[in-house]
């Protein structure tokens, strides 16, 4: 008899599994590329050399990784208590809307307070957007996976409404663009000669804050207990609804910060395509980081590089950015599969009952 048997997986084993998964995903994606008439080797050469082949490439990769760290955390934090926030994309857009409003449509935009206020406004808007599904979940037990996702479409339409309507720049000659943010509202650049902005430092701070909260605070302890066993948490007198609201608000604030940063430091105005889907990629960031906040930085750089490489492919090989999504989906598949396989070992012979009795979640 051949059995799958549970075994403890090590960090090294999961790193190997990740590398193998990415290789397998690239191989599978290469088949699709070849089928659509593109030389996969040429495409992959660019996909790697653009983001990681030069100092400038690295700096641009970090620019792309910055929102991904935020959205990764925005997925990770609720996931630690078994909530799925797949609405980071919409929360990011709301953060961008609020930041634009502060910068362009209030006097604060021209003052020295512009940057901190627009960042706070972005956080507040993202938090509010995520609190809607949070409240529905906490008080009415409505499935948060579906509501967070559906609100993405609403948020994107809200952006469209604004930039095609009341917020359209009179000088944009009919293009759906808001006015440009004033100089005072631009996030400072961290490294001269690059576009790496304050948002990256804030993202690293956010990682530190999430690590601290989860490991060192009573709130983090409650989140971990709920994540381990919601029933036990209830018996221990932990207020589930309150924790859901707090975690969803925090998640929304993180994603909102990503949106405020993109508008202020990268696009400079509210427009379509502000995010190529950073919110959705945040799901993959969180999962590939195995819900470990510190690991989101590395995964975000890896997937940020993929976005940057995808931009290059659009120009040089005329490939759509959708290729990046296809590859991300494939990586996700192979990681899910290899994690499960790495968690087991094939065993030939009699079943070892002691070993197979462990709980599988």
């Amino acid at each position, binding site marked *: 008899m051949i059995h799958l048997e549970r075994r403890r997986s090590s960090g090294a084993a999961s790193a190997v599994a990740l590398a193998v998964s990415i290789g397998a995903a690239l191989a599978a994606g290469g088949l*699709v590329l070849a089928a*659509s008439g593109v030389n996969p080797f040429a495409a992959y050469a660019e996909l790697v050399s653009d983001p990681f082949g030069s100092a400038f490439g690295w700096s641009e990769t970090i620019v792309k990784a910055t929102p991904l760290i935020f959205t990764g955390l925005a997925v990770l934090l609720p996931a630690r208590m078994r909530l799925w926030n797949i609405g980071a994309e919409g929360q990011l857009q709301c953060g961008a809307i609020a930041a634009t409003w502060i910068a362009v449509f209030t006097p604060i935009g021209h003052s020295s307070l512009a940057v901190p206020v627009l960042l706070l406004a972005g956080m507040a808007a993202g938090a509010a957007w995520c609190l809607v599904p949070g409240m529905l979940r906490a008080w009415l037990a409505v*499935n948060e996976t579906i509501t967070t*996702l*559906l609100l993405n479409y*609403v948020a994107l339409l809200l952006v469209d409404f604004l930039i095609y309507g009341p917020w359209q720049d009179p000088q944009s000659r009919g293009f759906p663009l808001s006015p440009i943010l004033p100089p005072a509202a631009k996030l400072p650049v961290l490294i001269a000669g690059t576009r790496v902005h304050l948002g990256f430092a804030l993202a690293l701070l956010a990682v530190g804050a999430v690590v601290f909260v989860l490991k060192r605070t009573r709130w983090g302890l409650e989140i971990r207990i709920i994540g381990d066993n919601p029933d036990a948490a209830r018996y221990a007198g932990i207020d589930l609804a309150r924790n859901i609201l707090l975690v969803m608000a925090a998640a929304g604030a993180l994603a909102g910060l990503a949106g405020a940063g993109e508008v202020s430091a990268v696009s400079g105005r509210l427009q379509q395509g502000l995010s190529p889907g950073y919110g959705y990629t945040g799901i993959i960031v969180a999962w590939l980081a195995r819900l470990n906040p510190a690991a989101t930085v590395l995964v975000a750089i890896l997937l940020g590089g993929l976005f940057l490489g995808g931009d290059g492919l659009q120009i040089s090989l005329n490939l759509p950015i*959708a290729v990046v999504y296809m590859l991300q*989906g494939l990586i996700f598949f192979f990681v899910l599969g290899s994690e*499960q396989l790495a968690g087991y070992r094939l065993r030939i012979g009699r079943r070892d009952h002691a070993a197979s009795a462990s709980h*599988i979640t």
Partner: protein
Amino acid sequence: MSPLIAAVLAAAVRSGTPVLFATLGEIFAERSGVLNLGVEGMMLVGAFAGFVTTARTGNPWLGLIAAGATGAALSLIHAVLSITLRANQVASGLALTIFGTGLSASLGRSFVGVPATGFRPMPIPGLEALPLVGPVLFRQDALVYLSYLLVLAAWYALYRTRWGLNIRAVGERPEAADAMGVDVARVRYGCVAIGGALAGAGGAYLSTAYTSMWIENMTAGRGWIAVALVIFATWDPLRAVVGAYLFGGVNALQLHLQASGTGLPVYLLLMAPYVFTIVVLVFATRETARRRLGAPAALSVSYSRDQ
């Protein structure tokens, strides 16, 4: 009844049909205990495959078959990951949606703006002349009629056949079904594949009947709306009809308001179907809790004899 109301109701049926296909499919998957959040991705790839096949062969029925087959093939990725490898079903479904979105847009770019001749309205003689129901239900295209039959077939299969009993047993208590000699994995693979085929067909409806064109991301969240409607339908194919046509009604109404130039901003009207679905989900959740019509007990729990 005024012709205007009949026209809006007929549009509601058309608009609800792609969601109805996908909802019926997801009901099968979830009834067997497998949550598949890849519906949106499978619909998109189905819409693409259906469109390309229709454009190339000139035969929308071949397009429908291609869409169903492609949807089923994609769903098997989810089946392997979640049934055989026991991976997290939410994660695997999300991966499928991300992959399907990327794949359909990558392959589909050269088909944007390509013409095709899809399904055309095909009034049913006799029935179309009925007052009220005639113009609404029986002056539609063949796929709408197919969806009527599918609802009845799905209900019959789930509640009146041995196989349907097995599906429900596997979704409620897989260990008991296993003890009775039901092959749990086999039933689940079958149901996930049905879900994929119907999601693909729903996609094909959008690209070969509702419109006759391919647009990137043309499902615009309908796959997710289908997942929500499964809860509204309390996993019952007959109630899925109500949910799908309610969604279709809201969509038809907002399109009508857009066309009639009420001055309401288009982008705010376009939000209506999503907001409506959230509201419906809230009421459905309260209703299912009150009447104890919960999800299949083993939904999204993988099964292994070892446990």
